[in-house]
């Protein structure tokens, strides 16, 4: 099959979405395997440079997911994160990032069904955007002569 399979970097909060992914797994809810998860203690820990770094290294999409507002394990981590996301989301779209590449969600550790649904949505939206060419670093041009 020649269909484009996107690579997505997912940043999940340890206390909720990471658990939801686990619950979805043990509940045998199937979801597409296109994302690699980076576990964070809290979405408040997410430095915006991680997102840009993921794109720069060739990720086709980035998905950030944490606890519902009000449910933060550290009381206000996700509230602070939300403000950063508002600015970052605005800036990246303003400079020409396809809206379907960067996703944010709040998924509690009990919401395996929501996890499954959003995982499918994220993968499909990123797939629709096609490979990331504009926000990744250029391939290294080794410029070596051909050797057998």
């Amino acid at each position, binding site marked *: 099959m020649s269909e484009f399979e996107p690579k997505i970097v997912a940043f999940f909060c340890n206390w909720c979405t990471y658990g939801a992914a686990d619950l979805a797994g043990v509940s045998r809810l199937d979801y597409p395997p296109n994302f690699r998860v980076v576990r964070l203690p809290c979405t408040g820990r997410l430095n915006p440079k991680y997102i840009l770094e993921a794109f720069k290294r060739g990720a086709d999409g980035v998905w950030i997911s944490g606890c519902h507002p009000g449910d933060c394990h550290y009381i206000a981590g996700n509230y602070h994160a939300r403000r950063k996301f508002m600015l970052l989301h605005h800036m990246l779209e303003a400079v020409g990032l396809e809206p379907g590449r960067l996703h944010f969600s709040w998924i509690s550790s009990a919401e395996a069904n929501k996890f499954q649904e959003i995982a499918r949505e994220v993968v499909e939206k990123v797939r629709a955007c096609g490979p990331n060419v504009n926000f990744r670093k250029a391939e*290294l041009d080794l410029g*070596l002569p051909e050797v*057998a």
Partner: protein
Amino acid sequence: MAEYIVKENALKDFFKALTEGGKRRFLAPAEVSGKLQMIETDPEKVSLDFGNTHQSPKSAFFPQTEKLMAFHKDTAKSDPFVYKPLGLDETAPMVLFGLRPCDARGLVVCDRVFQNNRFTDPYWKSKYESAVKIGLACHDPRPACFCTAVGGSPFGEAGLDAIAFVRDGGLALKTLSAEGGEFLKGLSGLESAEIGAELAEKKQAAEAGMPGPLDQSKVAGAAVMEIYNQPHWKDTADRCLNCGTCTFVCPTCHCFDIQDEQNEKGGLRMRNWDTCMSWLYTVHGTGHNPRPTKTERMRQRFMHKLKYIPMKQDGACGCIGCGRCVTLCPVNIDIREVARQMNG
């Protein structure tokens, strides 16, 4: 030494002829994104009326990012993981037209860093040795120019294969080296002429309005530590931002940082311009930094230009007086002021 003129209507032919039918890459002052730069350009687009190029021409021989070597990881081939040098064999030789005499002297300073009796940098050598460098004298030095203060001249000849000046909308040229004479001989657009007297007269006129020599005798005679410990460094450093603009535009700043990048297919080693103004430039793996504050970093640049390079290059000043750092420094740190403080 041969002398020629190029009439205004023959200029384009002459510039085209300099490429030797496309065998040489032609670099000349031309506008790129609103700034005049010494770049590879179309012979049609050369500018003759300018103060100096915005950046120095060192990037022709020492690009900001230069690939040194690369390897691949394809184990099906015979040579995986073996570093091979890049860009040493098939570089097309260059011809540079319109180098200002100050910048040509800057290249001489760099040349002695990259090629000396201790080692030779093949990446510099392969480009520098084969290049023909034709200077364009300054009739109208700019307010921040001070080549005459550091031993140069707006009609200076160091580092050049030929020098030209603008004459009736065309050019007058004098060859300076055997290579230059050989290269120019018989090129289309050139007519033999006597220009020696005119050149001398114009040189005198251009130098007349320029500053006199900057006295560096005490710096030359003093021990390094004596200048190093002078109290004025702290005062200048107060306002220095350590931004590094001076080092990036300087025709004689030549420091670089070697970096490796790799991916699943292979790896690349390259060198990039670096700046002694940066904290990162000297920080050790342990976290110790021998130049911990901006005072040491700023002092390093001036010591290097005005003391260390003269010590290593038989008294030749490391500053060639192009004035770029003076114009572009956001806080007006003027190397002439610092040189005076160091000397006295």
